[in-house]
């Protein structure tokens, strides 16, 4: 019996070694990039000829914090290029003549997320699992009241997630009384922030390109 248990323990160890290598996930910050667009299907984007786009981005930061505006001109420039490519004309004044048909507001926010890990951890299991085989005195597995439970340890990581969002709406349709803005099209780029400015610029450019590519309805067709 002891010999058989030893064989079981050995083979379980081998099998766990073979299978416990949990499949991968995101390796680079760019792997976390997500582009989301949403629109009002009843809105006729073909009627847009002039748009208002501010030179600045609304940074949502903690009170007393100073927003980092390093990338503002870069982002605004990319959006302007894409909007102009639709045949629309930019106005930098909300009371310009002709009056802009739509306004586009751009916002940016950085949020710190925290992960808590429990070791050992095998994906898909609701609790830690550690087989024990020690001589002939005892054996068991955790949470079952046999042997010596193995609780592992815990560690915490954090990462910054950046979000860039823009919203297109008609100023004439804003419900001032109820403070409602009816957004006709929205684009969002979301991902884990890296430390390299050039890499961030590449990711923003790819994200904005993708947002317009997956919004073919903007051309009014």
């Amino acid at each position, binding site marked *: *019996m002891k010999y*058989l*248990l030893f*064989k*079981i323990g050995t*083979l*379980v160890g081998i*099998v*766990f070694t*073979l*299978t416990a*290598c*949990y*499949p*991968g*996930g*995101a390796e680079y910050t760019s*792997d*976390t*990039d*997500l*582009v*989301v*667009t*949403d*629109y*009002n*299907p009843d809105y006729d984007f073909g009627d847009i000829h002039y748009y208002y786009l501010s030179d600045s981005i609304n940074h949502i930061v903690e009170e007393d914090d100073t927003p980092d505006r390093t990338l503002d001109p870069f982002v605004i420039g990319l959006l302007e290029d894409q909007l102009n490519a639709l045949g629309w004309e930019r106005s930098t004044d909300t009371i310009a003549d002709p009056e802009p048909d739509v306004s586009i507001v751009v916002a940016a926010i950085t949020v710190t*997320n925290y992960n808590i890990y429990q070791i050992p951890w095998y*994906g*898909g299991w*609701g*609790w830690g699992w550690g087989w024990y085989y020690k001589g002939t005195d005892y054996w068991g597995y955790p*949470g*079952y009241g046999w042997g010596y439970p193995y609780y592992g340890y815990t560690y915490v990581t954090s990462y910054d*997630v950046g979000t860039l969002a823009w919203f297109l709406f008609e100023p004439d349709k804003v419900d001032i009384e109820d403070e409602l803005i009816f957004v006709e099209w929205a684009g969002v780029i*979301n*991902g*884990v922030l890296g430390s390299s400015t050039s890499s961030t610029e590449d990711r923003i450019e790819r994200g904005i390109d*993708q947002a317009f590519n*997956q*919004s073919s309805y903007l051309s009014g067709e």
Partner: protein
Amino acid sequence: MNDLKKQIIMKYILTILVALLISAAGYSQGLYSINYTTSYGVGKTGDYIKSPSFRGMTFEGRGFISDHVSIGGLFTWSTFYEKLGGATFNYENATFTGTQYRYINAFPLLVQAHYYLGVDKYETRLYLGGGLGPYIINQRTNVGVWSVEEKNWHFGFSPEVGVLLPISMDTRINVSFRYHYVFKAKDTIDHSWFGLSVGLAWGE
């Protein structure tokens, strides 16, 4: 049923299965096996993850009630995984584009019965059989920093064909091929996949 109750029930089931394995190990008319298992999703499971699974294991315990028939239990853990780079999908009027990481962890906990051809346990023996019982299936999609997860108990069944190849008086190589069909639960899909297991079996 809340998660705590599910975990308690799962622990009981696992305890029974492990006890079954151990008792089969010590029982003169029993057979237990540990197998490396690969899986191949078909149907909606195959649509969700096309890549085969090379991460899996199966534990089995069988007790013979006659020369040709055994009953027992099975526990399998299979992990399916696929990365979809830059995938686009739509939900209502919204369009999402990002690299998706798709996972399925499947845990069948089956009661089984098998019929064996031949009576000489020291010769190669083919067997036919199958099992039925609960499956725990955890299906998760990670995209960006977001995750969508479905973790449910299902009911399913699994026909099987296999062969035992003796390599010593009490040890055999076990090769089995089985099909799993798992009924949908709540808003999930119904799952199905083929599994190929190769391992060692001990007992009489």
